[in-house]
């Protein structure tokens, strides 16, 4: 692959890849490392990919596998069955909860979602991949992706509500000594 093509590939994908990596690692520096590592692997192997249209899926899949490989050394694996059933009738979420919140807080809330659900949920919110592509990438059935999205959204709503409550608690009440005297 020529240097120009590599540059084009990086420009097209490094930002969404970084966002995905940030959601996985919860650390900006680790996310940067993981993104770089993904392009390193591309530089070594990706040129062999025959269909350029599949570069995006290849990059996201490679980044996710690298994350799993690194994490596998030191982390636990969550038992999915222990995480409860899918919400039968999910409530309509309040959009104001999100719109008035700082982006960093929303990302923090997303990072509080269990990893099993966070991965498809992040890909969903990045809007680059359809649920079928997410299922292919994660090597799970389509129905599993749907249920993980449903559970993930429920956890995200809870996390956002906690963030909002936390932000409210931090607000310092206005205390004006002169106003108090007058009253």
């Amino acid at each position, binding site marked *: 692959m020529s240097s120009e093509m590599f540059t084009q590939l990086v420009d097209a994908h490094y930002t969404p890849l970084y966002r995905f990596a940030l959601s996985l690692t919860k650390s900006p520096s680790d996310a*940067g490392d993981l993104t770089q590592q993904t392009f390193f692997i591309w530089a070594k192997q990706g040129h062999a990919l025959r269909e350029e249209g599949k570069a995006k899926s290849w990059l996201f899949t490679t980044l996710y596998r690298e994350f799993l490989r690194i994490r596998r050394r030191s982390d636990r694996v969550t038992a999915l069955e222990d995480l409860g059933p899918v919400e039968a009738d*999910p409530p309509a979420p309040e959009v104001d909860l999100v719109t008035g919140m700082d982006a960093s807080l929303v990302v923090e809330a997303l990072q509080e979602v269990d990893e099993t659900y966070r991965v498809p949920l992040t890909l969903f919110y990045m809007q680059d991949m359809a649920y079928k592509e997410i299922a292919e990438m994660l090597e799970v059935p389509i129905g599993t992706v749907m249920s993980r999205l449903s559970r993930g959204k429920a956890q995200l709503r809870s996390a956002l509500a906690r963030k909002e409550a936390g932000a409210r608690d931090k607000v310092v009440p206005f205390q004006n000594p002169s106003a108090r005297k007058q009253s």
Partner: protein
Amino acid sequence: MNNEEAKFILQGYRPNGADAADATFCAAIEQTKTDPLLGEWFAKQQAFDAAVSAKLAQVTPPAGLRAAILAGGRVTEGGKARVRWWNQPMWMAAAAGVAVLLTAGVALWPRQAVAFDEFAFEDAKLSMIHGHGDHGASTNALQWTLSQPVTKLGQNLPVDFANLRNTGCRKIKYQGHDVLEICFNRNGEWFHCYIARSTDFPSLARNAGLAIVDKGGAAIASWANNEQIVVVVSQAGRKSLEALL
């Protein structure tokens, strides 16, 4: 399809409308048009999803990440090109001929290189933590490159010696010349990499092949070419070093 099933499916419908043509969603979408309650729920869900997507889109990568990726890609591509060059039969034959002619010169390498190896080995023993702090962006970038599994050692390293020396990389003196030292971690083990300029040590044979020696539980790998002389010391033994090559 009841409303619960429709909600389950519709939670996979992206708020940018990219799934509009997907047949999986058609029936559920139609149902939102005929059922006001479901329609209201779907509108709120889409607004919520769009808001989260918009917030996520505000996340920007750190400054310098793009440049680091591009630099890393060039280094990796460059590494591949060298391999192809070596693999050409013509050059392999020429190299074999040169190797025969330089036998006498190469024979000098072990005795002189051992001195440099010894120096590196002794320095690595002095402290197990030196070089692990922040020694500037260029050093950090090289340290990161060396720590990556895809970076193969035993060949020319992507080193701008003057830049590293002037931007905070740890340097030590050997026979009156600067030697750079970079520590890096690979597979949970720390390695000490010493880099000298070949022009500073003309007495050392150039283009020496890769050699690994064991020393008191540690292992030392060394190689050289027209540009640089490199020694890597590992306290974890030969196998850990061989994994880097």
